């Protein structure tokens, strides 16, 4: 187990290094010149050259990358070009909001997904099944922008149950989490349904039925735990996705997450912020998957032995 963990950590480190290298080279290859963006329209060529020198952009690519890496290993993500603030400060300020929304969104997804996926599997072929599957199809294909505005209009503007915008209290998170959760739940519902159907066709379920167990006990004690494994893997992926920022939902609800930071940085060719956000979300994806891999054997003994 410890060896496996070490192996996985080494892998994770290499992945992050790879992400850093690829992102760095891609940003370097952009035709836009950050020094010119900073220096503004009135700048002389001399000023632009001086600023390029200040930023170290006149160095060869490898030297620049090495400087960045050594900084990174000391926990220094550099300073934003446009804001001059340390990138880590900017990310850290937005991390709580991003993590909160991630947790709440995934919670809604999982609860809705498992509930409706199970109902659909148990009532396979019925009207309820078709309704759940249609709804989940609509959910996964609906544009976030439309769904977010619709919820906002109904529950905040018209009914006034929740605040329209902002961050800080429980009431603020309900609508953003519901938007993400309802849209994402479709994936989970479909996944749970097909996994459940597979499990419900297994011999041991038939045996359980034959010995007279209640169907509630069969579903909750015997079938569901075995069908839940793919859900854990999906959560791992979702963590990464939500960490990278859910730009649209953040924008509609004025949620101060990482997505807004990344979006503005891309507009301004603010390379240190783009690097910082990319690495943070890469780290989250790696960590999420690592966590999923570690939890899987706890739930499923078959993985433990193999």
């Amino acid at each position: 187990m410890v060896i496996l963990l070490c192996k996985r950590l080494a892998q994770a480190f290499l992945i992050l290094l790879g992400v850093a290298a690829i992102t760095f080279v891609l940003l370097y290859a952009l035709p836009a010149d950050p020094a010119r963006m900073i220096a503004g329209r009135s700048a002389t060529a001399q000023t632009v050259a001086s600023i390029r020198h200040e930023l170290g952009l006149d160095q060869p690519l490898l030297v620049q990358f090495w400087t960045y890496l050594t900084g990174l290993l000391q926990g220094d993500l550099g300073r934003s070009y446009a804001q001059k603030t340390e990138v880590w400060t900017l990310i850290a300020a937005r991390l709580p909001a991003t993590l909160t929304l991630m947790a709440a969104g995934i919670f809604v997804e999982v609860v809705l997904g498992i509930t409706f996926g199970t109902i659909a599997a148990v009532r396979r072929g019925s009207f309820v099944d078709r309704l759940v599957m249609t709804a989940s199809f609509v959910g996964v294909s609906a544009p976030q922008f439309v769904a977010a505005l619709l919820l906002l209009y109904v529950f905040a503007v018209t009914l006034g149950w929740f605040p329209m915008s902002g961050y800080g209290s429980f009431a603020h998170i309900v609508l953003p989490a519901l938007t993400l959760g309802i849209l994402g739940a479709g994936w989970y519902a479909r996944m749970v349904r097909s996994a459940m159907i597979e499990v419900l066709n297994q011999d041991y379920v038939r045996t359980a039925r034959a010995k007279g167990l209640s169907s509630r006990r069969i579903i909750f004690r015997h079938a569901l735990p075995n069908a839940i494994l793919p859900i854990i893997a999906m959560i791992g992926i979702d963590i990464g996705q939500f960490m990278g920022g859910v730009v649209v939902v953040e924008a509609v609800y004025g949620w101060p997450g990482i997505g807004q930071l990344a979006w503005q940085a891309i507009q301004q060719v603010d390379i240190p912020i783009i690097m910082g956000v990319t690495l943070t979300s890469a780290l989250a994806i790696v960590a999420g998957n690592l966590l999923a891999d570690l939890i899987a054997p706890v739930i499923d003994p078959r993985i433990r032995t193999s």
Partner: protein
Amino acid sequence: MFKRWLLGTAMATAALLTPLAASAEGKDIVVTYKDDITTLDPQIGYDWVNWSMIKSLFSRLMDYEPGTANLVPSLAESFDVAPDGLTYTFKLHKGVKFSNGREIVASDVKYSIERAVDPKTQGPGAGFFGAIDGFDDLAAGKDGGLKGIETPDDSTVVFKLTRPDATFLHVLAINFASVVPKEAVEAAGGDFGKKPVGSGTFLLKDWTIGQKLVFERNPDYFVKDMPKIDSFTVEVGQEPLVALLRLQKGEVDIAGDGIPPAKFLEIKNSPDGAQMIVDGEQLHTGYVTLNTKVKPFDDLKVRQAVNHAINKERIVRILNGRATPAKEILPPLMPGYDNDYAGYDYSVEKAKALLAEAGHPDGFETVLYATNTDPQPRIAQAIQQDLAAIGVKAEIRALAQGNVIAAGGTEGEAPMIWSGGMAWIADFPDPSNFYGPILGCGGAVQGGWNWSWYCNAELDERAVAADSMSDPAKGAERIAAWKSIFTDAMKDAPWIPVTNERRVVAKSLRMGGENNIYIDPTRVINYDAIFVK
């Protein structure tokens, strides 16, 4: 010494506002923006959102009467301009304090302007101070400051210029010339933009990154009865549509991003619409650059032909009518705008005839660059269709702003660029601001902003001559000189002037004041002057 101006002290500014002061003062207001505030460092901030906040956090030697383009002394009590226009002497108001309690002295002015020029600051304002003696050395990164700024005593600042610069008083009124305390800049450890200390009408009380900024009135501001509100809270990351809904509910007082197109007519036709919409002209021209170094735009007839080809009314409709068709380079609000200039009228026949004369009866193929944020690609498509009507096939390259800027500044790269989304909004209300970097020979260099690569040595000489007339008495003559420079530039048709965009701000019914303090020509929202009814 031919002129001594003692009249216009900043007190005049306050006097101008006394009618407003009669209404109830006080109150706290909420302002929203979609984009986060990048920085409040006056030597770095350079976008239309932070511009107005920085204006109110800091003071400068010169400023403008609210809602106008009229220069008045601000931190300066008085000033003299030497007859040769090379020496400017300013006397500071005594007893003006930074919000950290220290009194402002002459060396603070010197330090602040040196900070704007120093490449270590990495700011966009250096170029404005090019006339000050010692600029070249400091801009090249050499130590020693600007030798052209002298401080004989604590309340006197003398500027020595290497060439007369009639815009110099405007330069001292732009944000980059704001006075900052050295000790606070150094204490902030490179992040003065998040911990600003100034001497303006407001103080920054609190900044929650990514959420909101709270500005409180400066109780020690050196002009009495300013500002008119107790505080304003800026909430960022607010989608314009949601901001407008909140404004209608009374949660927001000013929606800084204006009114989204989908809501515009609904609001406009509502009973309170007229009071909520502030629709004002700004010093802006949207244009298409025609690269004079790329075939076939090196041919004047071709440039004139495409000037006749663009249906500007249709582009105005794409902008929901929030613009007017442009005929010339300068926007109508700018001194020197030529009311009598007819421009190139929209005429497919004339365009085709000129193309035929130039030897392209069947048109040609070219490339049109534009930025990729709405509505710019749609405007580029409208231009593309107009060009197609005269046989010119333009391929559109819609790219991120930085990439378009890079293409424009590379010789022989971009035949046409639609400037929307990065167009020239004047830094100060003077026509020379529309020439040098974007139409002069100095900007037609690698990495420059003259994307037409237009270089007319004769016009350059006339521009230098006009900017040497720093005697205020010659103001009218100077503006006339500029007017003819821009009219003559249009004869060479380096641009297609397309639109003059207006800005729209939405405000709640309790907000008072004329439209021109919500869309102030030099600062957009004038937080010093707006008030609650």
